[in-house]
């Protein structure tokens, strides 16, 4: 009898262990591979992206001329922050407009900064010369600023007011209307 009892206890214990293992396996299988992309994104992206009406995302960059700049450097005047690349067709299409905005920036009391993504200094130097670009540019080395601004591909333009608050953003090519609208929201005085 005693042997039977011991055997029964062993079997019972075995059942418990197998059950616990199965439960664990089932929960891993259910929550692991089936975890949606949304869940994974939420887990992995604790930092919020740019939000209109909130402080713009901080950045640290160096212009092509070697000057260190950050968001704070632009306090006091609205900023048009344009992400582009020398290889990007829609960026090239909108670049005359960005250049025009830069040309009017003194009168309009705002500033323009170009941030090149996935590009090289050499390519930017060429692009600047070739397209007669007149605004300051910085290379986004290691894509840190692009990532913090959650950009899925250039071009993208952000309108930041004099206090560093994001007032508007255009993900994709910028039009004249959207540019004037965005600048208007920063209380800059754009020239038509």
């Amino acid at each position, binding site marked *: 009898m005693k042997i039977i009892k011991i055997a*029964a206890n062993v079997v019972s214990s075995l059942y418990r262990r197998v059950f616990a293992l*199965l439960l664990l396996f089932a929960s891993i299988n259910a929550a692991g591979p*089936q975890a949606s992309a949304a869940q994974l994104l939420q887990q992995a992206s604790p930092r919020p992206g740019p939000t209109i009406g909130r402080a713009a995302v901080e950045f640290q960059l160096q212009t092509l001329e070697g000057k260190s700049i950050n968001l704070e450097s632009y306090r006091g005047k609205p900023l048009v922050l344009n992400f582009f690349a020398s*290889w990007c067709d829609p960026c090239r299409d909108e670049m005359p407009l960005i250049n025009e905005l830069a040309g009017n920036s003194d009168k309009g009391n705002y500033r323009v900064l170009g941030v090149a993504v996935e590009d090289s200094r050499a390519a930017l130097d060429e692009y600047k010369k070739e397209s007669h670009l007149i605004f300051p540019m910085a290379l986004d080395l290691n894509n840190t600023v692009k990532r913090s601004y959650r950009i899925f*591909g250039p071009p993208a333009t952000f309108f930041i007011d004099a206090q560093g608050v994001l007032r508007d953003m255009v993900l994709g090519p910028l039009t004249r209307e959207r540019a004037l609208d965005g600048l208007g929201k920063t209380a800059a005085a754009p020239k038509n």
Partner: protein
Amino acid sequence: MKLFSFDRQKHIAIYLACGLLAACSADLAPFGESGGRAEPVRFGAEISLGSAQANPAAPFLRAAPNGRLFAVWTEDTAHRGPKGSEHAAHHASGKMAPSPMRNLLLAASTDGGTTWSSAKRINRNNEAIQAEENGPKIAFSADDRAYAVWSIPGEKGDKTRANIRFAMDDGKGGFSAARTLNEVKDTARFPIIEFSPDGNLLIAWIDRRIDNPKPRQLYLMRVSTDGQALTKNYSAGEGLCECCKLGMAFADGGKTVYLVDRQVNEKQIRNHMLRKSTDGGASFGAPVEISDDGWQVGSCPHSGPSLGRDSRGWLHVSWFTLGRSESEAGIYYSVSKDGGKSFAPRRLVQANTAPEVLYNNLAVGADDTVYLAWTNLDPENRAQIFFRTIGADGRWGEIQQLSRAKGDASRPMLALSKKNLHVAWTETDGETSRAVLRSAPISQ
């Protein structure tokens, strides 16, 4: 703890219920058609290609019919002027060359990617050879002759109004002088080159000679193995996304040609299409949508699809999409088992770990195993190379991280030689870059 005081019958019932649940969850899982996981692939150590001081980038791999593995990549070169010494001085400062000029280098390995021959320059003249998504490609004829294509900016330096260059093994240990393939100047980029089983080379690219209405056209050209143009440039389709690489595969001894591209429609939705030719690439039927992802984006994804065909004639495609919302973003895979008439519903290879365009590549082994490599972000927000397999039996392998880049790792390229699988990629850190290779033995 109360759970463990149940009697034996209840345990048995729960045991069965759990078994059922486990079985069901395996069925519902997005990976692993037949449940279990394939064995991980054992990769060797990293090997750097090229000269570290010259910022090697954009590696592309291809095995020749004789089994030798070849790699091509770009390296920065001196100013276009005669003052070559500026190059070295600049690199001593640790910064990227101030000139956009790059060389295209070629090296070979006879031991499965472990050691490499000294690099040979393909381009005779200094050119601003493009890299990243628009990197150089190489193909081999049946008699192991090498053919290379690459893109250079147009006359005014515009990378988006570019030209396709072509050079071939000159039979004397070097390469012929490069010539431009696009007949209309400053209109072509994103070239791919493949040696067709019919004995000729087929070259495809994205063209903008008809610049309005946008978007771009798919252009092809057929070239003989002695470098003679067999056709003029000809259009094989339109509506292409302007900055995403193409993919090509053959069947029926070269009579059937498959091409994949990212399309863009008038609403800026960028789904992928397969185009099929049954006359050796002379003409193509209506494109077949691979997946209705619905990614609407006016900007440049700069990330094209990848295509492979297995011995059963199945077509395998991988791509990146953000889908209809950021929550769908990731690398996806689909297969066509009917020669490209239809595709199975897309399956997630890996979800984006952060908002980022990811890059992917796919290769198919002789045993029909599908090898997938792509980029994604690690917990430190650095882009790394990831990898997994899909066995011929449908079993999905675990995701493996292949790179440990200090900066970013990007644009993986896969190739298969007789007994090995190879993955190459570019690592950038600040203004420097390196071309990296890892190889793994495989049985096929």
